[in-house]
């Protein structure tokens, strides 16, 4: 940690406690606004428009008509309070407006006033309010203190998902000229260049060549990192952070080793050099679609048979849940649906499209196509953090909950020491890392550190009681967030890494002729060759 933070960081106890509320605790917190240059390419005004009031209400009306979720969620809440202690930002900040229901009420008070009988004629009775600049300020502050992690939606008796309301809030704000610099700037880079980091093709190529050299030096094996290879079987779409950031790049090396060991031809793409899609975060169907279409175009151009997605939580939500809708990556298009059929005719129908890299690796490990020497990970005692979007907004494998089983199975197949964190903090009840949903920016550091507290408490518990020294992740945002936040809580950032970093450590690479593993390696090579011939 460079400098002491200008806010208080809780001392961990290993237990999660629900705080008494402190009104206005996070009221002043605002991330930087986007300027005209950032807003315009996304189709939004660059500053607050003069008729913001009418435009905002108009936009709300439009969204209510386009999204059943928003319409039902605006009506159905009874203020039962079930969600009030479920949000990691409430637990970490004790600001009551970070309780999911209160975050929703910021919009519901306006909805009632303009769209309901009771709110039009009895505003005081039902807490309806005219839209004011103060309310817009509140929206900007608190809709960017929500990571859209959907934990509240698990516990709501009507399934109200605050993420849907946060997205609508951000979309309305954007439409009147109030955008967030962090999310919108990144989305602009995705549209303009092809990835969130803004890496042009030559920079990606250079990085990949460097990685090939590194892996060759480390292992003596010429593992390839192919880019824009037409006719490859698999297109790997991964968060661009995997190209440059630590520990992300370790997982990229892991994916490459898996493809190498299995002998499956694959490629990355400069056009589709980003799995992430911040269009989700700002609730913009059009922008999310535009970003996702890059993957469709790349798949069509390269003629791949299969699309695999790297370790990234929200990207997997968009890929698993939305790609088929947005781009046709998937299966089961209607017969007259030429748009989707064009792509689906090209993709291999015998495997899930898209597949998560964990599904892909799990299948290869299970079938014995690739092998791992678990003892290589013996210096690690590993726990696994379920990423929010993977857990509550997607699936892996062919049964509900596969998204919890498969990453854990992969870890257990490549390592001997695995320990889960406490029930109530994992699986569908997992806590967000605190940096998701467009909050992974330094100007929201206080929100991020405090929002990470519940996860940190559960982590401390297993560090103390189970000697855990490795936090395994399958999300680029989780990796960046924990790397930054762990030190605030007294832990070394080196404890953070990807699931495929563990795979990378333990995987047996064909051609690695060293001592006792020789025979097995030969076997793997034979199988790999066979697989490659298919």
């Amino acid at each position, binding site marked *: 940690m460079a400098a002491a933070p200008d806010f208080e960081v809780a001392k961990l106890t290993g237990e999660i406690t629900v705080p008494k509320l402190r009104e206005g605790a996070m009221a002043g917190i605002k991330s930087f606004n986007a300027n005209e240059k950032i807003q315009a390419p996304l189709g939004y005004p660059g500053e607050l428009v003069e008729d913001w009031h009418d435009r905002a209400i108009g936009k709300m009306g439009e969204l209510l008509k386009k999204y059943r979720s928003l319409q039902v969620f605006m009506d159905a809440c009874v203020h039962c309070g079930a969600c009030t202690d479920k949000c990691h930002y409430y637990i970490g900040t004790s600001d009551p407006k970070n309780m999911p229901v209160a975050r929703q009420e910021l919009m519901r008070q306006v909805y009632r006033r303009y769209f309901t009988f009771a709110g039009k004629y009895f505003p005081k009775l039902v*807490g309806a309010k005219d839209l004011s600049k103060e309310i817009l300020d509140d929206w900007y502050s608190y809709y960017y203190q929500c990571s859209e992690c959907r934990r509240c939606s698990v516990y709501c008796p009507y399934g109200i998902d605050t993420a849907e309301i946060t997205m609508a809030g951000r979309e309305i704000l954007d439409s009147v000229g109030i955008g967030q610099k962090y999310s919108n700037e990144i989305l602009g880079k995705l549209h303009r260049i092809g990835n969130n980091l803004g890496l042009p093709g030559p920079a990606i190529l250079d990085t990949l060549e460097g990685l090939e050299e590194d892996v060759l030096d480390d292992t003596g094996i010429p593992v390839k990192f192919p880019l824009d290879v037409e006719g490859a079987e698999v297109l790997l779409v991964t968060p661009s952070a995997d190209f440059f950031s630590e520990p992300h790049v370790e997982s990229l090396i892991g994916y490459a080793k898996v493809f190498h060991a299995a002998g499956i031809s694959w490629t990355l793409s400069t056009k589709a050099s980003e799995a992430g899609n911040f269009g989700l975060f700002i609730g913009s169907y059009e922008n999310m*679609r535009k970003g996702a279409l890059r993957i469709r175009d790349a798949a069509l151009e390269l003629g791949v048979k299969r699309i695999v997605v790297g370790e990234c939580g929200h990207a997997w939500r968009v890929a*698993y849940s939305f790609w088929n809708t947005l781009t046709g990556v998937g299966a089961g298009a209607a017969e007259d649906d030429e748009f989707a059929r064009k792509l689906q005719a090209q993709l291999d129908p015998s495997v899930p499209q898209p597949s998560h890299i964990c599904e892909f690796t799990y299948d290869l490990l299970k079938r014995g196509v690739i092998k791992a020497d678990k003892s290589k990970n013996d210096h690690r005692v590993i726990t696994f953090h379920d990423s929010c979007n993977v857990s509550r907004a997607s699936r892996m494998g062919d049964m509900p909950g596969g998204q919890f089983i498969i990453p854990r199975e992969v870890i257990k197949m490549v390592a001997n020491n695995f320990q889960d964190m406490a029930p109530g903090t994992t699986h569908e009840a997992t806590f967000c890392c605190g940096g998701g949903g467009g909050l992974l920016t330094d100007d929201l550091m206080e929100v991020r550190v405090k929002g990470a507290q519940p996860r940190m408490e559960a982590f401390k518990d297993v560090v103390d009681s189970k000697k855990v020294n490795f936090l395994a992740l399958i999300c680029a945002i989780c990796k960046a967030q924990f790397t930054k936040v762990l030190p605030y809580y007294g832990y070394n950032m080196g404890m953070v890494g990807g699931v495929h970093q563990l795979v990378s450590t333990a995987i047996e690479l064909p051609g690695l002729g060293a001592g006792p593993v020789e025979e097995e390696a030969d076997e793997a090579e034979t199988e790999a060759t066979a697989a490659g011939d298919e």
Partner: protein
Amino acid sequence: MSTLSIIYVVLFYVATLLLTVGLVRKILQYKNSPAPLKIPTTPAPMTTSGVAYRMAKEVVLFESLFKSSKWTWIFGWMFHFGMLVVLVRHLRYFVADVPGWLLAMQPFGKYAAFMMVAGLAGLWARRFLVDRVRYISTLSDHLMLALLMGIGVSGVLMTFVEHTDIVALKMFALGLVRFSPQPVPGDPILLAHLAMVALLMIIFPISKLLHAPGVFFSPTRNQVDNPRERRHLADWAAQLEK
């Protein structure tokens, strides 16, 4: 017929009309608004019958609420289940020949009223005792509880303390059903009870009581988890591909 009777007859016809029209309008609105994206809260069922089972657990057992808060769950379930049994019991006032099963369940219906009132009391207490719930409670939340409590307590009073003339009441109720209005009994507790019920019917479609139809249309609960297997496309989203 007295003015009072006319007022009550009109009140109940108007209340029934507003309840029906209001609810039908809302249900059509929910049904007709598109759900452009697959957003079930996962793990979610992969088949339609699985979704029916999930929804049944949600509606009958309040499964999600059970996961979140045991106190709210127990009070909420007591109130709703109690009210259901009480409502079923009240059918006897609307049918000329009371079937055997309805007769047999009358005692349960009577005592279920205590369950309903106790549940309401517990829910109301939470609005004062739990700081987070206190913070989010609005005036209308309290008034809604007051109204339901008023209905429950007045009902209990008539069943167990100040018996009302149920023969005359049944005449009144049957008169409404048969469109042949009959005088309303003049018992003040009954009149209060009936007025509060009519008020509840009127505000149902314009209040948070919309959670009742709403839950069935909640995309996080009623969608099948099959986005990779089937392409899901809303009409307005399909236009973008043109």
